[in-house]
């Protein structure tokens, strides 16, 4: 027990762990909608775009959350308009705009090497970078998004399942889509310090697909994915502390391992039930 509680005597670990659990749960929850809507790549792309915004807002001495958030939102609108007004498909538009934005960030960092701030944290995640105020921001964003998803659950479910039919049944799907884009941008910014832009996409996708393997029910998939995200956040932090690796990487590796184990369990179960059927025949 003491060994388990030992790292909690450090404030950085307490802050980091609370943030990791919240971010894990948050990414797990919205990941359900990302995966079922086929939006995995936009999650990946937008997190990179936001990195560019983070560097620019640091250089201009803007508030990080406002600067990065606005940048991410503009990138999302640019992608949307490019797809609407040209013959370019969404995946290609995401590739151009978000990577260019990421490259802007990299270019600025390499030009002004005298940065005090450690941008490794933004890229790969670092618990040392999580301050008390970061924890408050993460908690606030998580609570707000959880509340929105809770009260918009039916509209989100119907829009995700069959947008066009939902429209007939009176759901304002365009409004739901815009709201979801804002939720995603907010979640990405809140997760950046913990997971790092390069690893956020995995935290969005892996808990959701693991939960999908475990259930055919939408409500249960929401609960399971949130729980898997939170638990891998918690144990990922321990792993990160114990063997001294980046927190984002350890959380994502733990999630990947969980997915592997569930996949293996499922295929064994299938084999066994097939064999049982054969015996009965």
């Amino acid at each position, binding site marked *: 027990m003491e060994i388990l509680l030992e790292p909690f005597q450090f404030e950085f670990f307490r802050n980091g762990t609370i943030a990791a659990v919240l971010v894990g749960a948050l990414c797990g929850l919205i990941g359900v909608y990302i995966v079922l809507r086929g939006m995995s790549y936009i999650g990946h792309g937008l997190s990179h775009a936001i990195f560019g915004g983070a560097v620019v807002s640091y250089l201009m001495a803007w508030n990080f959350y406002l600067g990065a958030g606005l940048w991410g939102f503009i990138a999302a609108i640019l992608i949307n308009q490019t797809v609407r007004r040209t013959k370019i498909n969404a995946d290609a538009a995401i590739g151009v705009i978000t990577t260019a934005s990421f490259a802007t960030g990299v270019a600025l960092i390499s030009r002004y090497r005298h940065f005090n701030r450690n941008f490794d944290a933004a890229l790969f995640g670092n618990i040392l970078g999580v301050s008390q105020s970061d924890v408050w921001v993460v908690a606030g964003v998580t609570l707000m998004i959880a509340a929105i998803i809770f009260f918009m659950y*039916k509209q989100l*479910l*119907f829009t995700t399942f069959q947008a066009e039919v*939902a*429209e*007939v049944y*009176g759901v304002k799907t365009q409004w739901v889509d815009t709201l979801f884009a804002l939720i995603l941008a907010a979640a990405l910014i809140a997760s950046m310090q913990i997971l790092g832009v390069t690893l956020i996409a995995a935290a969005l996708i892996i808990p959701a697909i693991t939960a*999908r393997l475990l*259930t055919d*029910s939408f409500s249960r998939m929401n609960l399971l994915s949130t729980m898997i995200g939170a638990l891998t956040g918690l144990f990922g932090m321990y792993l990160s502390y114990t063997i001294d690796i980046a927190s984002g990487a350890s959380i994502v590796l733990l999630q990947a391992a969980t997915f592997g184990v569930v996949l293996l369990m499922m295929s064994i179960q299938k084999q066994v039930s097939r064999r049982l059927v054969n015996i009965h025949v």
Partner: protein
Amino acid sequence: MRPLVELNQVTFGFGAEPVLEDISLHLHPGQFAALVGPSGAGKTSLLKLILGVLQPTHGEVCIKGQALNGKPAPRVGYVPQLEAVDWNFPVTVAQAVLMGRIQRSGVWPWPGRKDKERLNAILEQLDIAELAGRHIRDLSGGQQQRVFLARALIADPELLVLDEPTTGVDMRTAENVLHMLGELNRQGITILISTHDLNTAAAHLPWVICINRRVIAQGPPEEVFTVETLNETYQGDMLVMHQDGMLFVQQKPHGHTYHDLFPHPVPGEVPAHRAESD
């Protein structure tokens, strides 16, 4: 009697070749009608205009005398094509059906007492009560059709719109679906379906509307399904037969049969041991 659905000179789509042109239709409360026509004739677009998902370029669509003007049609149940459904999506039968209650249930994510009562009643009515907890993929074609019919019915619609309810299911299931729709129609629900299946339409529906960009003809099938009308609708060479009081429609082969082109086709073979045992 005021029509439930009214389309007045509706045109949809721009340019010299609009998708639909000068469509005027009335559907009265309690009517059961089929929209027939070839692929690309504008059947789905016409259904979506009536549902209020698409807006006409000219003319107006009225439900109970009220022009829609971009709002979704009130009290309309819609059953999309089964082929358009993502069968891997994680929803159970009960979860899928409850989506139809979206305008009536409260703010909580879970169903309330009234929602559950309505759900059970509808599932009983359609004979799928024991499937409530199943995933939508683990059902037969007929059961899948019933699930989406149940979702439409749980919203207490006055008008039921079904896009190709007999496509993608076997003949017996198609027959069952149309019987079920006939039963609902007798209970007072107005129903409009689109279909490719002229023979089923002729056998089961009292009113058909032939469209191909324009309305070619509308009326009871025995009056509308004539060689002239069908040739104009399908731009082909159609054959209409009457037998045992039923009406059958068939496309004539293109002036020749397989045997005309290949007098000696590769023959099939019945395996010998099967033949012996017979």
